[in-house]
């Protein structure tokens, strides 16, 4: 096993057939092995345990993964995403916002990237002062700029206010953010925690902004639970859906008691609040939670996704993840348990974000350029450690590890396979007409994401995929069109024929060519379906790889390679 994808190995009690071994993977796959001899089983068990918990980054698969690319290609792969260009796209730097170099050596804040954007009126002492007043030095910086209304989305961590402390620099920092937006006289400050948690933090010398000290803010709690709640919630959910011969009632009761969908809804609600404040009221918003790298990242990125159609394209979504998650220091290494670390730090925050995006794609089938396979593939590789993008906890660590020289970029790989992740129903016209999405968060709009949590339980999925059919259909159309064009060119050369004849012939030949393609496609479709549908009760059938749509078999191929 080359990857560290498994999350836990369990040795079950001895049975007559041998020693059963259960591996639970982080992509929610569960594999059962039965090893005949107990000693072998134990050997496998202990070596797996060792493999699952690499002690240093040197053992991680990304450093040995080699897709047969030369250094130049590798470098190009890393250059696909350029955050400087992204801020330029948003219209920053501008007359109100500028690039600051205070963090160029990671002196002010270790977990932030080097390049940060702050209001033009925020001087260096203000920034440094503000960062001292914020947990982990994460002072307010720009993450998204809504050009139309000149409103900004900023992020930071909680202030070290305790019960009464205040900091003038921090106050003037918020003042500066407020001044940078002429549309609104105040800044929303969103604390994404439940009020109770924020209050509890005050006892530890942290807390939240006091509205009396900050002249121009509107303070708001949102109530997203912390990483520990999320972790147990997902664990409960997985426990429920892992039960054999689950009844409908138990499933729904389990879904309810796990609270997973409730948390998803809370995150989406917060993002909607953010998007409304920015797009409708034109106010700037400052988002924070405790340290400003979990809930803040979720809310900021999801809010931006709602506001900006660019982020709903494949490239844009990569940029969004790179910006709000990777560069602003979401602790991927800790949250995804890349190294043997503190189990208390592990939490499915990013998974949750992907699921929120999926829920949105279900509500707006035409608004996203990518399909759910794109999200699943990203999820897979966040945990696979095959690519360097998600290694480490922040940019500084990544530079220390020299990831750009030693590993490959996932984005390059995904870009090269872009065809597989396209949503055939995507309509740029729709995005133009609805630049800002307004999802409904009535509870019945949230569904259980079967393809995420049961990706490898074939028996559960629809046997036929609309997605695949439509994609093939479009592909065929494209081919037919190119044939048509080629034929037209040929025709143009043969100028002796008169126009009418030409037209007809082109039509005929094109029809022929498409017809053959159609039949080929049709027959392959039935062929793939001819393999038995599996039992009613659903036994796992590993031979039927062909049965699945192309995108899945691709997923499957990767998965098999890794095991």
């Amino acid at each position, binding site marked *: 096993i080359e990857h560290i994808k498994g999350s836990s190995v369990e040795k079950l009690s001895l049975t007559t057939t041998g020693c059963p071994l259960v591996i639970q993977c982080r992509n929610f796959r569960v594999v059962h092995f039965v090893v005949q001899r107990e000693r072998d089983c134990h050997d496998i068990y202990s070596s797996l345990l060792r493999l699952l918990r690499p002690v240093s980054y040197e053992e991680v698969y990304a450093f040995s993964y080699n897709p047969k690319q030369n250094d130049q290609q590798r470098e190009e792969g890393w250059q696909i995403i350029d955050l400087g260009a992204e801020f330029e796209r948003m219209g920053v730097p501008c007359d109100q916002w500028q690039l600051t170099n205070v963090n160029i050596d990671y002196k002010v804040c270790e977990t932030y990237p080097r390049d940060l954007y702050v209001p033009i009126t925020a001087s260096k002492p203000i920034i440094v002062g503000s960062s001292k007043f914020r947990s982990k030095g994460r002072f307010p910086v720009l993450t998204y700029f809504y050009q139309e209304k000149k409103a900004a989305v900023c992020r930071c961590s909680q202030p070290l206010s305790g019960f009464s402390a205040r900091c003038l620099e921090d106050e003037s920092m918020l003042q500066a953010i407020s001044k940078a937006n002429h549309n609104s006289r105040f800044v929303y400050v969103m604390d994404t925690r439940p009020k109770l948690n924020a209050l509890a933090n005050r006892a530890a010398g942290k807390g939240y902004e006091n509205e009396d000290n900050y002249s121009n803010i509107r303070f708001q709690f949102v109530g997203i639970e912390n990483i520990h709640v999320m972790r147990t919630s997902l664990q409960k959910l997985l426990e429920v859906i892992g039960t054999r011969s689950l009844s*409908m009632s138990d499933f729904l009761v389990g879904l309810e008691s796990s609270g997973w969908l409730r948390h998803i809804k809370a995150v989406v609600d917060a993002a909607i609040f953010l998007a409304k404040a920015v797009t409708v009221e034109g106010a700037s918003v400052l988002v924070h939670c405790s340290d400003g790298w979990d809930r803040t990242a979720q809310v900021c990125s999801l809010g931006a996704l709602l506001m900006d159609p660019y982020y709903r394209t494949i490239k844009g979504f990569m940029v969004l993840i790179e910006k709000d998650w990777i560069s602003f220091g979401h602790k991927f290494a800790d949250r995804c348990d890349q190294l043997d670390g503190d189990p208390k730090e592990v939490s499915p925050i990013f998974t949750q974000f992907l699921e929120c995006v999926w829920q949105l794609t279900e509500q707006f089938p035409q608004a996203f350029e990518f399909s759910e396979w794109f999200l699943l593939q990203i999820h897979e590789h966040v945990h696979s450690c095959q690519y360097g993008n998600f290694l480490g906890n922040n940019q500084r660590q990544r530079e220390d590890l020299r990831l750009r020289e030693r590993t490959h970029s996932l984005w390059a790989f995904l870009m090269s396979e872009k065809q597989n992740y396209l949503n055939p129903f995507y309509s740029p016209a729709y995005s133009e007409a609805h630049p800002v999405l307004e999802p409904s968060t009535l*509870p019945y709009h949230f569904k259980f994401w*079967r393809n995420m949590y049961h990706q490898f339980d074939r028996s559960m999925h629809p046997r036929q995929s609309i997605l695949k059919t439509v994609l093939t259909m*479009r592909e065929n159309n494209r081919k037919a069109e190119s044939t048509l064009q080629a034929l037209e060119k040929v025709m143009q050369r043969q100028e002796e024929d008169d126009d009418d004849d030409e037209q007809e012939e082109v039509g005929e030949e094109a029809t022929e060519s498409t017809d053959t393609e159609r039949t080929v496609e049709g027959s392959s479709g039935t062929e793939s379906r001819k393999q038995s549908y599996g039992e009613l009760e659903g036994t796992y059938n590993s031979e039927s790889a062909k049965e699945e749509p192309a995108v899945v078999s691709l997923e499957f191929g990767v998965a098999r390679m890794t095991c």
Partner: protein
Amino acid sequence: MWRMLCSDSRYNRRAEAPCASPATTCSSRTGRRAALGRFCCSSGTSMPLRKVWKTFWATPASSLMQATVKKVWKTFWATPASSLMQATVKKEYLNLQGRLLSSVKICTCSSLTSQAWSSVSTLHALSRPSDANLPDQWGLSSPEKHYSQMKELHDRWRLSTVNREYLVCPSYPPAVIVPKNIDDDMLEKVAKFRQGGRFPVLCYYHKKNGTVIMRSSQPLTGANRKRCREDEQLLQAAIEGSDKGYIIDTRSSQQALQASMTGGGFESKSCYSSWKRLHRQMERGKALQESLIKLVEACGDEYHNMDRWLSKLENSKWLSHVQTALSTAGLLAECVERDGHSVLVYGSEGKDSTLLISTLAQLIMDPYCRTLEGFLALLEREWVQAGHPFQQRCAHSAYSHARLQQESPVFLLLLDCVWQLWRQFPLALGFSEALLLRLATEAYASNYGTFLCNSDQERCVLGLKENTHCLFQALLRPRERDCYSNPLYEPTELAIWPSVHPQSLQLWRGFFLRRTPQARHLEEVQEEIRNMVIKWGKLALS
């Protein structure tokens, strides 16, 4: 519903205009309702209805009334909600009125108003709108046609007309398919042994291995284990040449035992030695109705709380019923297709869950049933002709103060299950979700005569075939066909085994959440996507 219409002054004015004949002199709302109720439906049987009907049309003043009814009807149909459920209509209606949507929780339809309502629908269906340019033929399928289409059947099965006067079994059609060596006298005796005279008849012949699905009602063995030689012979004849057959009882064995205390029962092992009984408990009647009421209430709840929604959804048990229905149908199909044995299905009366699972099993196994025509023909055979009492079951839907014993959304459950199948096999079914939605609407309130009455006999007495149009024919007109067919349809000869894991089943959002604002947006998008797909499909073909 009627009251709802009347409560609007516009309608009131129109409704009160023709007050000439004694039957229609009713200026007050209650008076009108009472009159209408008396007029058509209050007696509950169909004979008086016809008489009243005739006299009604005979009086000259009634033509005015007819016009009114039509007008009201048309205005009503012009509103976007085509009376899916009474509550949703009301919601929609209030939407139009610009009032608050959430203020309406439960529609207050008294039994009387809904009776008036059903009478209106009867009136209208019988008035035979002239704009419909429909073929005169009524219906798509009949037992005779079914029999003559299946040549393989002929050496062991025959078409019996023992029920041509509806005397042997009032709820069966005049012709039924039975084993060849069982004569009509024996059938009459068997009918006496089965509840409601519903003796075992063939409903599906599986061409691949020659096995069949039969359906009946429960045998009347009673507490002292009565026997009926003819019944035993009939069943034996059905599986001639095979070592055994299955009986699928849609009650639990406990329930079956209880039924035998009250005169019903089940086939004992000793008398039917080559038959193996399988019990699968399926909810029916009142429990199903309660479930629908709870679900619709949960869907109308605008409260933003995830836990509350999930617990209400769970509490309604509707999805559990869907799961049970699909897995029982899967079992039935498995017996036939995989195990290669014939099956007899019944519940107690054999008019509800029996039809449900036999229909689903046919959809699973028979490629022809998955085409648009095939599906409609299947519904006609298995539901309309086999005597599902539509008038009793689909009178009020979810919102009604009168919790009638007979009301039960079995047909809706069927449509939901078909939708689940369609979702899991989007290419294998020749029709679209829109068809299912249309059928769900039509079953409760219809311009057509198809879903009127409780059985073939009643329809015959009322002369529905002469006086109304057939819905199924209407759905196959070219324009309708375009809109109800599935653009991605790719016929497959194989059985489509649905997954019944709870994770694979979903709430039928297109139906139950049809009237939410978001749903409308989604519907538009889906329509657009559909057009896109059709366009690509045409491109690929041209």
